[in-house]
Structures are given as C-alpha cells and as structure tokens.
C-alpha cells in the first residue's frame, strides 16, 4: 500500500489477556517507530527500529511491552497481561533512510482494556 498500515484498527480485550498489534510500514522505509496516545494526550514514544541496528527500547513503560521487526518490514507490538491503563491508541510511523527525521504515521490501533 501507499501508506503505513496498522491492524486491527480497534481491539477490545479483557484485563490480563495478551494482545498483538501489527504495523506494515511504507515499502523501503528503514526506520519504524511505535508511539502511544492516551485520550486527550500527546504522543508518547515507545520504541524504534532502524535497519539492522539494535532497537531503541527506551520508551517502553514496562516489561509487559515488547516489539519485534523482521528486517525492514512488518513490526508487531505485544502487550502481555494487559491492564486498564494500557487503553490508548497505538500509532506506528516509518521514515526513509534519506530523510529519517520525517515520519509518516498510520491511523493507529485503538486498544480498550476492560
């Protein structure tokens, strides 16, 4: 596709369940970012991947959060033992190697933990 694609668009889960969120970046983009957006708040950095370098995990809020990326393609964000405070929109962005500071965002996954 032409843009960053995220799935599912909405996810409702029960407290304590694990969830997986998926991001398909723009083809050819080497960098991929995950952000969290709580209701009425700004975007909070979680993690980013740059090519084959070790990911920057400095924004992950707890060890319940993890993310993987295969090469320069799809990434999955996993939240284990979900809590109500994990309810938010999770946004993925990608950027090209030539202009790595310009990020293109997907529409996000709205996660609701009941």
């Amino acid at each position, binding site marked *: 596709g032409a843009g*960053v694609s995220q799935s599912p668009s909405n996810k409702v889960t029960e407290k304590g369940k694990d969830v997986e969120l998926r991001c398909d970046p723009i083809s050819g983009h080497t960098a991929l970012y995950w952000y969290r957006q709580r209701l*009425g708040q*700004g*975007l909070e*950095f979680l993690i*980013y991947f740059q090519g084959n370098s070790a990911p920057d995990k400095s924004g992950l809020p707890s060890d319940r959060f993890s993310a993987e990326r295969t090469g320069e393609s799809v990434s999955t964000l996993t939240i284990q033992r979900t809590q109500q405070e994990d309810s938010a929109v999770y946004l993925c962005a990608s950027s090209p190697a030539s202009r*790595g*500071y*310009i990020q293109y*965002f997907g529409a996000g996954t709205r996660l609701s933990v009941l």
Partner: protein
Amino acid sequence: QQQVKQSPQSLIVQKGGISIINCAYENTAFDYFPWYQQFPGKGPALLIAIRPDVSEKKEGRFTISFNKSAKQFSLHIMDSQPGDSATYFCAASGVQGAQKLVFGQGTRLTINP
C-alpha cells in the same frame, strides 16, 4: 530536558481569523521542529517543519516562527477555515539518522464558521 510544552490546550477561532499555537523546548540538541495535524480517527500528518537556522518558514496559510534564543516556536494559521479544525501537535527531534520525536500535548483547534 526532553519535554516539549505546548499551549493552549484548546483554541476557538472565528473563520478568517489567525490561529496561534505556541511551543517551548529545553533540549538544545533538538534541531528539527515539525508540526503535525491530526483529524479524529486518523494518524498525525506532517504539516510544516523548520530547522533552527531560519527564524520563519511559510507554506501557504501556515507559518512557523522560531526563536532560538528563547527556545520557543509557534504555528500561525492565517485566514483560518472550518476545515482546519483538528488537533495540532508540535514536536522536536534531532536530524542525524532516525530520531524519535518528542511531542507536545496537543492543541484542539476549532474554527467557527
């Protein structure tokens, strides 16, 4: 050091008026300052950006003013239109390689017809 502070939280402007949103940062290592526009149910989209080597950048009705000594920057929307109603985020990052963006808290802008 990593924060970007944005104000106001919400703003109502009459059609045709000027909308002004302000941001301030602390980290002098930041050298790229974008503004993102977000409509409900959509991801943020890059609107306009500035580097600290210029004091102003204009693209159509949108202008960024940048004050390096004060570590402040602002977005001006001239001749505001109802279609400009959205949430606006300022952000900051470095430019070398891939860089995470540090976002402001957002401003919900409403343009009344």
